[in-house]
């Protein structure tokens, strides 16, 4: 074997690999067509094999030549219609094609490889195809498309054999062997011309699909890429332009012409952007390069597993950066295999479930919002969030309390947690999950993200979002310790600035960790200075200087010095640090002044790693910029916090932060900010329960100047809409919502408050009342907060407003949504059990004892019960209630009690009632602000009949009606 010219060999390798890539899919198509042979297609494969054979023979690659020859023989039979391409035959051909590829990739050693298993298999098919020929003695016209081998046909499809095998079977030709040989002779004759094709193909197919994914790992040479000549021309053109512009710039600099400099600057700007774009284009490749191998993967695997699966591929033409295409290969394969292996059920299972026995996997790529989305969806059995959560709890990845509060989607995404899916056990439970965290890590490295949607029994959809290119990414620039850092926009959730006055209120310290309350969730906070072990600093926007930060806690005040009178002369010295400290010391400790200083505001970058969110505290927030990623040197590989570096406009370098690794470094590891955050949430919840009678409110606005609140537990959901979404029909406002019409109201329709702001972007707060949905029109900003129950139910009370409270220094009116709906849609309540009055008949109305220490809540509950016609007795705490029971126990039919009360709490009261012979028949309904599971369990233990959330009028009244009815009946 002699390699005369490396270039020729290289050309042969590239060419052959290209042929082989095509062969795979073509063979699959041939298999699918079965007896209905597409000659054109078979010809194509035949010619590919033939070209490889020709090239290999030319270069003395005898093994490759032999294998290609054997394949070609079989293909020749198929082409001539003498052999029906059964799955078995195609399988052998595919295996041969794989082997060919391996040989060609390792071309220098190819002649030493033993390929006999392939050639034997191929030759036996080839000869087998003729075996019947020797058996039969009659020559016939070979033009008859004769299905020949009865053994083979029997194996494929029943109808094919039934139709054709018997009658035509004996008509086989004697000449066929001869003909084959002729045929081959013909082929070798024109093999020269085909070799010409081979050479010609190089320039002519430049727009084709280069085989980058074949870049074999064994020989790590530079991979090549094919670029259309027109694109190269364009690049040359642009380079020329750039040179011209440079000359102009140099000229302008020498002449000092400022105005011209501007023009030249613009020109260079334009040329560079165009150049950048064009160069990017050279790296772009269709994702079909990766997708094309999946028909084979799905076919082989489903065959092995005895499943029937159709694969649909959409969006092969979507282009992505070469590096991404290469890197996405493994994760995608993994996901597709997962879908085949675990997603799609066996045909029997599917039929039993009433699904089509043949499963469907859809592979789809499309552009969305500057990113490429790849979706792998199957109609298999889906993921069971509960099982995943259970498994995650068992593995100690999350606490059972965390699991309880998770949404179904969060539970499904647990599968992505590192450490989740290493054990086989989980696979048994979940059906999925081998190495999903590896997939996620791979995607993280690409700056992509992964999301799983799944419905048990219906299937799963895994969406992967990828940047178009890795080279240039948009980033948020932040500053800490006097250095700039870049945070990739994909990781960025939002930017949060907590004004100095609110730091103490919003930032809480639980254990040794700091958290910030963000729309009702606790967000773990890390100070970048801590993680990177650099000197903490802060930026003073007034002086525009960075100073060392000496606070220990975020919520601490800047200065811990003893208050003294301020030395007026110190002010002049504030430029030097020492002087500043001195001035700090002399400064009187005026809480307001220090706290309100803008330098005390916190700048938080809320980032998401996909599995969790957390906040990074930085000194300053700069702009968002498109940056070019440059790799860090070898010496910095061990520093985990960085994804690379970039060069800023001023020539200095900024490090790019790797938010996943930073979270790991800071000890935040898993979902929702890890166990630590879980502990925090737990602790915070405990603290909340301890602080009695807290009420979670959703605050919002309607007019710009008034703030409203509504109990959070009444809210179904909040939707953002445009004013144009509102339709006015029949004198009512409605919008389309989940396939129906959602009636809309605004507070000003009922209560005398300022009219709804005339804005384009509105919010709709959806409530579920009397079995129907209703939307309350509102405007932002919305926030979810917890307040203690100091509610003033006198001053601002009116129809639709149950009272007011002060939230964040703003008077907030509490909306009584029941009243509002009742006024606007009275008919809703007429036929709904919870709102009907009681039908007392001749009897006296049932009497309800309400025990509640908060006047506001007591009055609320009393209000709607009296309205329904009940007699009401009230007590401020358990002890008072007990006294009332002792005195007039026989008249009372039902007790509604709060849990948290002074003197005697609801548990004790219930216990006493239930243990007293006189009262143990009385139903007790407990009211609580937070229906914590432990509370509920404890309440049930002492005998609470039912639990309800305060201000959830509908449920409470329903059960009051139910209980009084049965109580009266008894």
């Amino acid at each position, binding site marked *: 074997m002699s390699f005369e010219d490396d270039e020729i060999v290289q050309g042969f390798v590239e060419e052959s690999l290209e042929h082989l890539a095509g062969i795979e899919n073509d063979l699959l198509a041939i298999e699918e067509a079965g007896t209905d042979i597409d000659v054109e297609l078979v010809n194509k494969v035949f010619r590919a094999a033939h070209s490889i054979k020709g090239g290999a023979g030319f270069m003395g690659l005898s093994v490759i030549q032999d294998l290609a020859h054997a394949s070609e023989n079989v293909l020749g039979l198929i082409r001539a219609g003498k052999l029906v391409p059964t799955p078995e035959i195609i399988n052998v051909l595919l295996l041969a094609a794989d082997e060919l590829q391996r040989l060609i990739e390792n071309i220098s050693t190819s002649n030493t490889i033993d390929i006999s298993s392939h050639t034997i298999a191929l030759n036996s098919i080839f000869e087998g195809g003729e075996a019947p020929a020797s058996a039969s003695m009659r020559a016939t016209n070979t033009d008859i498309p004769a299905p020949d081998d009865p053994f083979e046909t029997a194996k494929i499809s029943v109808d094919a054999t039934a139709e054709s095998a018997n009658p035509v079977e004996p008509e086989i030709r004697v000449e066929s062997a001869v003909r084959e040989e002729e045929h081959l002779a013909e082929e070798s004759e024109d093999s020269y011309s085909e070799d010409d094709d081979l050479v010609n193909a190089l320039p002519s197919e430049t727009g084709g699909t280069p085989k980058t994914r074949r870049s074999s790992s064994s020989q790590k040479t530079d991979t090549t890429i094919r670029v259309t000549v027109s694109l190269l021309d364009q690049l040359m053109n642009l380079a020329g332009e750039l040179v011209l512009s440079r000359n102009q710039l140099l000229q302008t600099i020498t002449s000092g012409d400022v105005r011209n400099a501007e023009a030249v600057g613009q020109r260079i700007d334009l040329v560079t952007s165009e150049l950048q774009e064009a160069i990017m284009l050279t790296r772009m490749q269709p994702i079909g390069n990766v997708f094309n191998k999946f028909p084979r993967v799905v076919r082989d695997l489903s065959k092995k597993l005895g499943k029937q699966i159709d694969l649909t591929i959409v969006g092969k033409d979507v282009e992505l950066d070469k590096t991404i295409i290469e890197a996405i290969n493994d994760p995608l394969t993994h996901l597709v295999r997962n879908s085949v292996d675990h997603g799609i059920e066996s045909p029997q299972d599917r039929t039993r479930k009433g699904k089509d026995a043949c499963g469907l996997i859809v592979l789809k790529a499309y552009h969305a919002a500057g990113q490429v989305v790849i979706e792998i969806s199957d109609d298999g059995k889906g993921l069971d969030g509960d099982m995943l959560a259970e498994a995650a709890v068992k593995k100690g990845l999350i606490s059972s309390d965390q699991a309880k509060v998770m949404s179904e989607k969060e539970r499904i995404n647990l599968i992505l947690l590192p450490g989740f899916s290493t054990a086989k056990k989980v696979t048994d439970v979940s059906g999925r999950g081998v190495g999903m965290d590896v997939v996620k890590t791979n995607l993280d490295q690409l700056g992509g993200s992964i999301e799983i949607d799944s419905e048990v029994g219906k299937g799963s959809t895994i969406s992967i979002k990828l940047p178009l290119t890795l080279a240039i990414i948009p980033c948020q620039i932040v500053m800490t*310790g006097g*250095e700039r850092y870049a945070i990739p926009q994909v990781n960025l959730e939002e930017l949060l600035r907590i004004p100095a006055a609110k730091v103490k209120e919003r930032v809480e310290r639980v254990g040794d960790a700091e958290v910030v309350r963000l729309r009702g969730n606790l967000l773990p906070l890390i100070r970048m200075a801590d993680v*990177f*072990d*650099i000197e903490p600093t802060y930026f003073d926007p007034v002086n525009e200087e960075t100073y060392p930060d000496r606070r220990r806690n975020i919520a601490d005040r800047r200065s811990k010095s003893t208050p003294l009178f301020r030395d007026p002369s110190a002010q002049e010295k504030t430029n030097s640090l020492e002087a500043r400290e001195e001035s700090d010391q002399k400064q009187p400790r005026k809480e307001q002044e220090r706290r309100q200083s803008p330098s005390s505001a916190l700048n938080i970058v809320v980032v998401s790693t996909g599995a969790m969110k957390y906040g990074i505290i930085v000194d300053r927030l700069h702009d968002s910029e498109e940056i070019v990623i*440059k*790799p*860090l*040197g*070898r*010496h*910095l*590989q*061990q*520093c*985990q*916090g*960085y994804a690379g*570096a970039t*060069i800023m406009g001023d*020539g*200095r*370098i*900024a*490090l790019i932060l790797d938010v996943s690794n930073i979270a790991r470094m800071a000890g935040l590891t898993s979902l929702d900010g890890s166990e630590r955050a879980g502990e925090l949430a737990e602790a915070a919840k405990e603290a909340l329960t301890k602080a009695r009678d807290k009420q979670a409110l959703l605050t919002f606005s309607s007019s710009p100047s008034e703030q409203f609140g509504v109990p959070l537990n009444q809210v179904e959901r909040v939707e953002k809409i445009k004013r144009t979404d509102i339709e006015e029909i029949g004198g009512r406002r409605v919008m389309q919502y989940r396939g129906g019409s959602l009636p809309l109201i605004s507070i000003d329709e009922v209560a005398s408050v300022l009219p709804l702001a005339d804005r384009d972007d509105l919010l709709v707060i959806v409530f579920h009342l009397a079995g129907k949905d209703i939307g309350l029109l509102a405007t932002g900003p919305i926030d979810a907060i917890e307040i203690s129950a100091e509610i003033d139910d006198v001053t601002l009370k009116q129809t639709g407003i149950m009272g007011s409270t002060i939230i964040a220094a703003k008077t907030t009116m509490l909306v009584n949504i029941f009243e509002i709906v009742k006024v606007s849609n009275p008919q809703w309540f007429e036929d709904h059990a919870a709102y009907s009055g009681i039908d007392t008949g001749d009897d006296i109305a049932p009497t309800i004892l309400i025990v509640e220490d908060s006047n506001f809540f007591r009055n609320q509950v009393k209000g709607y019960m009296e309205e329904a016609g009940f007699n009401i007795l009230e007590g401020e705490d358990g002890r008072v209630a007990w006294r009332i029971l002792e005195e007039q126990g026989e008249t009372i039919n039902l007790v509604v009690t709060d849990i948290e009360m002074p003197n005697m709490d609801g548990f004790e009261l219930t216990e006493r009632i239930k243990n007293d012979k006189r009262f143990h028949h009385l139903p007790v309904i407990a009211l609580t602000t937070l229906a914590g599971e432990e509370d509920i369990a404890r309440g049930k233990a002492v005998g609470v009949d039912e639990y309800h959330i305060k201000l959830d009028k509908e449920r409470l009244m329903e059960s009051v009606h139910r209980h009084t009815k049965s109580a009266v009946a008894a």
Partner: protein
Amino acid sequence: MAEPKNLTKNIIELATFYVGNALCGMDILKVQEINKLMEMTKVPQAPDYMLGILNLRGQIVTIIDLGQKLGLGAAELSGESRNIIINAPGEHVGLMVSKISDVVMADPGKIEPAPANMNGIQGAFFTGVYKTENKLIGILDVKEVLRID
């Protein structure tokens, strides 16, 4: 740069420089350039001997404090401090030295094995020493200097 080598076959050129008070040298062909760019970006969490990273015409160059790496203590920045940018496999690395000295023509045959310790620097960092009329030049083992501990 390559010309003199061809002309005088058996002579190598040593770029010499001071690290603290120690005179060191390395084959000049390993040096890409010498500059005095000191606008470095610090990298938190990097090893002590890493001064930071530098933008060298669009390439990120890691700068190593040679003094610290050789165990002589952190370098003091002065007007004479220079970065010697060397071609390492796959990247460029800068070595910050206290002062640049002459280019010395050396006969490879006269390079002697390095002593165990030279001016307080471990012998392991040197491939040998070269004696001139009045000076002793430690020839730096660049591979060893760039080795990651």
